[in-house]
């Protein structure tokens, strides 16, 4: 396989939090590695508490310290530079300029006392040294690009004057104003209604195509991943448990967690039937189980799973790995 140069390389990322009582350490992200290539969409999937959002915040060093800290030995390399080693001004030149981010909740991530035009223009003024007038023209252009009607008028509106879908479009316009190479989209449609979600996802697809950026799509929704990601990283309990090209993941989910998650999704294309539920719940980040972290909920687990955590093992399909001993002992999958 010819591999183009990696744009964003995450290696052995560990982000821990000291808990409130000072009694323990929450190992929110615990040894996460993945690569993002130019122009692709990489989906990071998992449920609450799996570490997917902390991973994305760590990339831009947005994890509040304290209580959080990224451990030494972690590497986040963007175009050959370790973001974790950059000085504050160097980091600012990357953040919002070459790597941008959109958040889940468009109401709380927009400033209520500035117009949307001001907020979109801010990054252009800072990073591209545009004059106020030019930045305003750029803001209007961005509003048009993200499909907001009457951009000349909307540019002077405040966030509360916009609907949820419109606010998310403004967030996208803010993120893309400097034409970043990487867009991190953290649950970009979770707060939106399904018809609006469809609009926003279509918009992201179109913009990615037009601007040629790479997208790190963080979501709990396997449906969103199936329709929009080229490759998928599945996270559980702070670990990557499976990575695969999207087709392979849905055709041959290998980790029992991925398998269980897929079976638990209510399907609109399947008749009414009892859903498959994964028993139990996600363990606490202060006390991950020993061995494979999924073993207490796994239907196949045996002694080895309790004793020893598996590494990410090659499944045989190019680019498909799973952190599960079943890869070496497939006969145990009943």
């Amino acid at each position, binding site marked *: 396989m010819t591999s183009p140069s990696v744009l964003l390389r995450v290696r052995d990322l560990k982000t821990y939090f000291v808990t409130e009582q000072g009694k323990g350490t929450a190992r929110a992200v615990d040894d996460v590695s993945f690569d993002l290539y130019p122009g692709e969409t990489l989906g990071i999937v998992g449920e609450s508490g799996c570490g997917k959002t902390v991973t994305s915040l760590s990339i831009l060093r947005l994890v509040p310290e304290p209580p959080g800290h990224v451990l030494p030995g972690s590497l986040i390399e963007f175009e050959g530079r370790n973001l974790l080693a950059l000085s504050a001004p160097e980091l600012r030149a990357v953040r919002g300029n070459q790597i941008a981010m959109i958040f889940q909740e468009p109401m709380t991530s927009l400033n209520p006392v500035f117009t949307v035009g001001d907020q979109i223009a801010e990054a252009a003024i800072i990073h591209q040294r545009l004059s106020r007038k030019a930045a305003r023209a750029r803001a209007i252009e961005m509003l048009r690009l993200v499909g907001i009607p009457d951009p000349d008028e909307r540019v002077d509106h405040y966030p509360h004057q916009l609907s949820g879908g419109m606010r998310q479009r403004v967030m996208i316009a803010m993120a893309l104003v400097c034409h970043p190479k990487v867009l991190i989209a953290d649950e970009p449609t979770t707060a939106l*209604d*399904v*018809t609006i979600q469809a609009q926003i996802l279509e918009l992201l697809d179109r913009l990615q195509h037009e601007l040629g950026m790479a997208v790190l799509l963080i979501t709990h929704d396997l449906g969103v991943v199936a329709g929009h990601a080229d490759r998928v990283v599945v996270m559980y309990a702070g670990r990557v448990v499976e990575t695969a090209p999207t*087709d392979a993941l849905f055709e041959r989910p290998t980790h029992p967690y991925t398998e269980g998650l897929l079976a638990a999704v209510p399907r609109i*294309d399947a008749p*009414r039937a009892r859903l498959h*539920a994964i028993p139990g719940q*996600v363990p606490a980040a202060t006390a991950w189980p020993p061995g494979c972290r999924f073993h207490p909920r796994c239907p196949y687990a045996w002694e080895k799973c309790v004793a020893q955590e598996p590494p990410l093992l090659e499944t045989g399909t190019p680019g498909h790995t799973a952190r599960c001993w079943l890869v070496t002992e497939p006969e145990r999958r009943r």
Partner: protein
Amino acid sequence: MTLVDVRELVKYYAGERSWFGLGHAKAPVRAVDGVSFAIASGRTLGLVGESGSGKTTVGRTMLRLQEPTSGTVLFEENDVFALDATRLRALRRRMQIVFQDPYSSLNPRMTVEETLREPLEIHGLNGAVSALLDEVGLDAAFAKRYPHELSGGQRQRVGIARALSVEPQFVVCDEPVSALDVSVQAQVLNLLADLQAKRHLTYLFIAHDLAVVRHIADDVAVMYLGKIVERAPAAEIYAQPRHPYTRALLSAVPEPNPHTTKRRIVLAGDIPSPAHPPSGCPFHPRCPHPKKSERCRTEPPPLRPITPDHLAACHFAEEPM
């Protein structure tokens, strides 16, 4: 046998007044605008819609957690809106609700046991908390815990146990799984299905997620801007949706299948404000139907039978899209 019968239910919220409540009132918000349906005993009606469709207001008004503007709700032939306080309290035992957010719907200062004990005391019933916990799949040790010690799924089980403690016949489930993770959501949906079979419960299952509704509902009603735009047996509405809004809603659900051949209908624009619903068919400004005409803009389509038990409020419900 019909257990709950809702007829022409209307709920308007008075418009806000400017000038600290002294100025002119804005247009009222027509949250529910003439909704009718019946649920047979032991069945589940899925009530589906997006934010602002009025689905939650329907559920709350039916239980008289909010007073209606007009309309009637019959529960076993009793007119719910005509009851005095004493008889309403007696009836409330038979109709309960499970709320969406298991974080804000439990009192943080009450243990699980106190939460479950309270409705029993109000209604003068004897019941064992441990048996209730067991029924919803929680260990008896949970009785002494406070809500903050529980996960979202466990809290929702407590919410369900609380609703069931007074042995209701009818339960409004208002988005009971939308705050939960997928794997836990499946647990709670299965639990609701088991309890229904065991206790012969009747559900109004309110949700925005059509895929979730598919797994629990016998019949489905779709709401848009305070009105039911389509109603049919579940199998039928999923196989052959008639209203363009239902068709778009079904097509917009992201499927966990990268090879889906589904044609996606992406609706333009936002949901209009229920204070200023569009003229004629409320869906016409966003409607992608090829036959859309002047008639849609002027003449509100009635909810009419397309086949004997499949109703749709569209002038062109018989036409393909």
